[in-house]
Every structure is written in C-alpha cells, then in structure tokens.
C-alpha cells in the first residue's frame, strides 16, 4: 500500500469494494465478492485493511429523525472568532452534544461553521447564549434555522462527478 502525505493510495479494486459498501454496508463479503467477480477472501482482506487504516471509519444506520418521532430543529451556525483562538473554539464546539458537524473556513473573515440540533428554537437560543457566545474569542454568531431539507448524502466514492478524484491512484 502506497502512502502520500499520510493518505493511502487506493487501487481500482479498493474503490469498487468501497462503492459496494457505501451502497449497502450490511451485505456479506461473499455477496460483495460475487457482485464484483472476486474471491470473498480478497474482499475480507481489503476491507479489514481499510478499516485498520481508518478509510472505513464505521458502519452506521442512517436514521430519519422525523420518522423516528424525534422533535428537533436543525440550524447552521457561523461563529466569527479571533483568528488566534479559532482552533480552540472549534474543539470546544465539538464537545457539545448539540453540535453534529464543525468546519473552519476562510472567506472574508476566519470563521467556524457548525450544524446544530436542538429540541426547540428556545433550546437552540439557550445553547448559543450559554455555551457558544461565552467562549473566549467569539466575536459574534450568525444562525440560520433549517426549514426544509432537500438533500443529505454522505460523500460517495461512486459519484461519477468525482471520478477523477482517484484517477491518479487507479
């Protein structure tokens, strides 16, 4: 296995296995092997190796919160910070159960973007007021409450639009 800048170079077989797993992670090694025309032992070895390398991080169920009866609201928050503390603030946000995703970005100003869930608008406000605004270095916070979700997908290795991403390794 080749590594470049700590990134494992995947070959075409790895990518096809990942694609099969992303379509259905519950299928057996034999089923994947059959579908791809290779031995189940090859599938097993490669999946175990990719798990060990952290390429396959975990296998999870994608739960629809609405259908599961969870009463939550989602919001995208943008946290503007003092550039010196942006990493610290981002890590603090990661610790909160209400925060699902955290990213940093450099547009006009250095900022943190986070996806947050809460039971109600009031809980969302309380969380930002009690746990985000008081963090040292936070300059201001902008919140957009999600009203309707049109698409939510995980990064897919099989997306034809990203076919060239792996081209050099295949």
């Amino acid at each position, binding site marked *: 296995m080749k590594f470049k800048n700590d990134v494992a170079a995947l070959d075409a077989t790895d990518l096809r296995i990942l694609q099969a797993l992303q379509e259905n992670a519950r299928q057996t090694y034999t089923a994947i092997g059959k579908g791809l025309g290779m031995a189940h032992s090859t599938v097993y070895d490669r999946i175990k190796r990719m798990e060990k390398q952290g390429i396959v991080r975990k296998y999870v169920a994608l739960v629809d919160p609405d259908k599961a009866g969870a009463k939550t609201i989602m*919001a995208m*928050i943008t946290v*503007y910070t003092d550039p010196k503390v942006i990493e610290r603030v981002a890590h603090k946000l990661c610790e909160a159960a209400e925060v699902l995703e955290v990213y940093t970005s450099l547009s006009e100003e250095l900022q943190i973007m986070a996806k947050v869930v809460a039971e109600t*608008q009031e809980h*969302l*406000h309380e969380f*930002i*007021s*009690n746990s*985000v*605004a*008081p963090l*040292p270095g*936070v*300059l*201001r*916070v*902008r*919140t957009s*409450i999600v009203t309707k979700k049109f698409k939510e997908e995980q990064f897919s290795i099989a997306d034809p639009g990203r076919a060239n991403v792996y081209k050099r390794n295949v």
Partner: protein
Amino acid sequence: MSRSQKIVPREKAFYFFSSIGNYTGVSALSLKEFIEKINEVNVKSLEFHLNRGDFEKWVNDVLQDVELAVDIRRLQRLNLVGEALRNQLVLTVSRRLRRLAT
C-alpha cells in the same frame, strides 16, 4: 463589592442577540457595563430581549437585583419600541445605579 459594581464571570454575562441564535458580539459583565452597552447596541436587540423578558431575568437571577427586575418588567408592559425604548431603559437602569451608589 456593592451591587452597582458587581462584575459577573464571563459565562454569566449578558449577551446581546438581535434574534434567535444571532449574537451581536456585545456583552456586559456588570450593571455599569450593561448601561453602556444598552446605549451602543442596535435597538432591535433591545426590543428582542425586552419582549422575551431576558433583561429582567438576568438582572434578577445573575445580579440578584429584584428591585431593578421589577422596574424592567414594568417597562416591558409599556410596549415601547425603537429609541423610546432605549431611552426608557437607560433611564431606568441609570436611576437604579445612582440609588445603589448612594
């Protein structure tokens, strides 16, 4: 330290928001600072917090100034908006500050 000079820890400060989740970057750690910030923050923020009862709650729960909390609640009932609200709020808090200082 007297109540007029009381400085609260950062996590107990009053954080001014313009609407749900939108923190303006303005905060106050004491009654003295609170009045300064009332003068500078966008008046929409004052309307937002007064209608929600946030000022009254902070003054009562954090500064533990029941008397001022009652005065602010009275102000809330007047349904003031804009600069009239700012002026009344400044007047109410200033009056209390002067009383506490004497």
